[in-house]
């Protein structure tokens, strides 16, 4: 049994935030005596990620994703709990650790703005002490995979957002880190650029065996890349497992879509429905019904008997709808 690449045990981060009341008097009072609120940004989170996995860390804004990433990249000390990444305790921030990880953010740049990317890459190569033969080989590979030969000599400020993100990925992978943290890598990118980046990440992961922990608000990213997701909300871990199984666990209903036969096409006619079944959409002779997961088989059988059904499908609700429900309600 191998040791997981990332282990997190009972991780909590509590921020003490001064309470600020409105008004002048209250603010003067707070100068003398401050009252604090404890904000639990991360609360008793545990998980383990094996080498080579791609895991999506999802949750609504303010759920604790960024705090978790900051702890794992060594920027924050947790209040309690343990974490080990690539054999290191992140918040000791040893250089040997920082050479093993990379953090690519959709909204922050590693590149030096006014000079061509190639120059930034050279500086990063030096900062990460990459031997020159390995530097050249890695760079060639990445440039080839990302198809970006022509970008190398233009100043970074003249590049488009998508081109810059390619540069960020090269910058983050030049020194061959074993763990990669991706924070909203497709932020603001057009659909085809998103697609190409996803393809690149999947391929790079397959070739190099890098472990990837990714946060994204685009479910398409997560669906395309992450067989496994970790869902956190209000700092707590709500779900850790296959993305597909998330719907089963979090959404206790299925969607039944029926197309009625031609002779029953009249919309006005009352349709007899079993108890507990709800129509979510109705368009001519197309009906979408929301049925409890457990009742789905019996309800479909009833529907097939009582209605002139031309076509019938039973589906899980779309993942976006499930996630939305979890975000809004904080779990089911």
């Amino acid at each position: 049994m191998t040791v997981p690449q990332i282990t997190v045990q009972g991780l909590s981060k509590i921020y003490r935030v001064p309470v600020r009341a409105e008004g002048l008097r209250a603010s003067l009072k707070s100068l003398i005596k401050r009252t604090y609120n404890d904000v639990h940004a991360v609360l008793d989170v545990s998980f383990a990620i094996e080498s080579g996995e791609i895991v999506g860390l999802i949750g609504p804004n303010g759920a604790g994703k960024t705090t978790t990433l900051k702890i794992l990249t060594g920027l924050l000390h947790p209040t309690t709990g343990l974490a080990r990444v690539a054999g290191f305790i992140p918040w000791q921030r040893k250089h040997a650790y920082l050479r093993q990880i990379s953090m690519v953010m959709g909204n922050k740049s590693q590149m030096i703005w006014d000079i061509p990317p190639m120059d930034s890459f050279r500086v990063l190569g030096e900062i990460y002490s990459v031997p020159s033969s390995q530097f050249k080989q890695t760079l060639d590979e990445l440039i080839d995979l990302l198809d970006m030969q022509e970008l190398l000599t233009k100043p970074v400020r003249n590049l488009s957002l998508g081109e810059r993100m390619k540069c960020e990925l090269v910058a983050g992978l030049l020194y061959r880190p074993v763990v990669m943290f991706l924070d909203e890598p497709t932020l603001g990118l057009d659909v085809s650029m998103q697609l190409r980046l996803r393809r690149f990440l999947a391929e790079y992961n397959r070739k190099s065996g890098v472990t990837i922990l990714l946060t994204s608000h685009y479910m398409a990213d997560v669906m395309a890349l992450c067989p496994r997701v970790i869902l956190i909300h209000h700092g707590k871990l709500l779900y850790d497992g296959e993305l597909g199984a998330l719907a089963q666990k979090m959404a206790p209903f299925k969607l039944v879509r029926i197309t009625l036969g031609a002779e029953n096409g009249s919309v006005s006619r009352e349709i007899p429905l079993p108890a507990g079944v709800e129509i979510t959409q109705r368009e001519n002779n197309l009906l979408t019904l929301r049925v409890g997961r457990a009742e789905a088989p019996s309800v479909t059988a009833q529907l097939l008997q009582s209605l002139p059904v031309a076509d019938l499908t039973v589906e899980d609700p779309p993942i976006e709808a499930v996630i939305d429900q979890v975000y809004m309600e904080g779990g089911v």
Partner: protein
Amino acid sequence: MNSIFTHSRGHGNLRGGMALVKATWASWVQYRSFFFILAFGWMIQPLIYLLVWTTAAGGKTIGGLNRGEFVAYYLVLILVNQITYSQTNWTIGDLVRYGQMNRLLIRPLSPFYDTLSSEMAGKVVYMIFDLPIVLVLALILRPEMYVTPINLLAFIPALLLAWALRFFWGYWLALLAFWATRADALLALQDSLVFLLAGQVAPVALLPGALRTAAVILPFRYMVGFPVEVLTGQVNTPGLIMGFVIQTGWLVLALVLTAVFWRLGLRRYSAVGG
């Protein structure tokens, strides 16, 4: 615990630091004209006082300095002021405030090198602008200066120490950004004190009694005025030795404060986040 130069346990990263300096320089050169305008701004104040004092001196001497000696003093001061001015101290607070410190902290290189590389890049770009102007002014205004080999020899360490003192004094003040969001007000205060007490308004020897005593004791004279006085021959041997002692003492304190606030600042940063 992390030291400012190595930023984590283990070795420093000089190779990475030097590469950063080169790249920063390359990117600064792209904005030559912008930095020339800044350098021009910094030159104006000493130029005004040069004109004030040379006019006041006329054909006489004030405090032992004649017209030509005032010209020499202020022309040297323009260069020394530019070399020791640490504009990069102003950007440290921004790094913390706008969360760019995070990007620097996840690299195996102390963020200190980022500041140092801008510092060094800046010096070169500013000198490209300042040197020719000072030369032209020297041709027009005819300074009088008798540089002895000893003065010249003492000037070099005095200048280097002045730069280090001004830089690290500003650096520890700037590090207060970890606690207070607008720590740069303290940098503005430092600039004012340098203006008053470091020999810009007037050579320190010409300041009235109490102010002169303050100037000699406080660190600010040793950031600008002291090396200028050394080169222009205004300091005798005991004064020179005393000057170096005080200058070094303040520098040691600045280094200690920088190291302490860096350590405490990072501890706080990793507790509350950026």
